[in-house]
C-alpha cells in the first residue's frame, strides 16, 4: 500500500511539472500566433493599443476555451494507461 501512495505522490508531482510546462508552452504559442496574425493584417504595425486589445481578447478566449482544459489530459492519460496496464498484465 505504501508503494501505491509513494507512486501516486511522486507521479502527481512529476505530472504537475509537465502540466505547468505544457500550459506555459501552449499559452506562449497562442500569444505568438495572435501577434503574427495581427502583424499579417496590419503590415504597417497598426495601432499599439488596438493590437494589445486584440491580443488580450484572443488570450481571454484561450483561457476560457476548450484547448486549455485539454491540458488536464496530462494527468488523465497516464492514470488511464496505468489502469489499462494493470488490467492487461494481471
Amino acid at each position: 500500500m505504501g508503494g501505491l501512495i509513494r507512486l501516486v505522490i511522486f507521479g502527481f508531482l512529476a505530472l504537475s511539472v509537465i502540466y505547468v510546462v505544457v500550459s506555459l508552452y501552449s499559452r506562449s504559442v497562442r500569444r505568438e500566433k495572435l501577434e503574427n496574425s495581427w502583424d499579417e493584417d496590419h503590415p504597417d504595425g497598426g495601432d499599439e493599443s488596438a493590437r494589445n486589445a486584440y491580443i488580450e481578447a484572443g488570450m481571454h478566449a484561450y483561457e476560457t476555451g476548450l484547448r486549455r482544459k485539454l491540458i488536464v489530459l496530462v494527468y488523465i492519460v497516464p492514470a488511464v494507461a496505468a489502469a489499462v496496464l494493470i488490467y492487461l498484465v494481471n
Partner: protein
Amino acid sequence: MLTYIKWTFRIVLWTSLFALAHYTLPQHDVVRVVNTYQERQDLGDWTRIFWAQPDDQSANLQNRDVQFIQTVRKKTWLLGFYQTGGEEPMVFRNEDTGWSWPFYFKFDTANLQTEADDLRSVKENPEWAVMTHYGWRNELWSVFPNAVAIRPVESADVTVIPWFNIFFFVFLAVALAFARAAWRQFRERMVDPAVEDASESWDEMSERVNERRGRFRRWLDTWRSKK
C-alpha cells in the same frame, strides 16, 4: 583530448540508455516450460538490484522465497527478432513488481506460476508458449529475468510484434519533440528578448560613457594652448 572526452561521454551515455531500455522493456521468448520451483534467495549484496521489491516489507528482508520457471527457449539474435534454430535453457524468476520500478504493475505471480505449471511439457511432445519478460540472465551473479506473462502458441514458429515497445518509442519520440519545441519557444520568447534588452542597454550605456569621455576630452582640450 576534448574530442576523446566528448566521445567517451557520448558512448557511455548511449550505452547506459540502451542497457536501461534493454533491461526494462518487455521482450518475448518462445519457450517450453520444463519445471517450476521455489527457492530461498539471499538478498544481502549488491545483486539486490536485480531482484524485485514485491511489497514494502520486502525492502528490509535479508532473504526470501522466490518462484522460478525453468524453460527451454528458442535461441534468437538481434534483440530476439530472429530465431537461429537452436535451443538453450532459460530460467525465469517469477516475482511481483508491485507499485515500484520497473512499472509492470505485476501482482499475479501465483497465477502466472499456475499457468506455467499448466503448460509443462516434455521434449517428445512439446507445447510452445510465448513468455513475456524483462531483465537479464547472468549465471555468474545469479541474475534472472522476471517473467511477466505467458501464453500458449500453436507452434514454435511465431512472429511476435512488440506493440508495447513500438508504442513506447513513438511516445518517447513525441515527448522529446515536445521538449525541444518547448525549449525553442522558451528561448525565442523569453531568453532572446532578454538578451536583446540587455545588449541594447549595454550599447546605450557605452554610448553615454563615450559621450562623457568626449566631453571630458573637449574640456581637457580647452586647457591646451591653441596653435
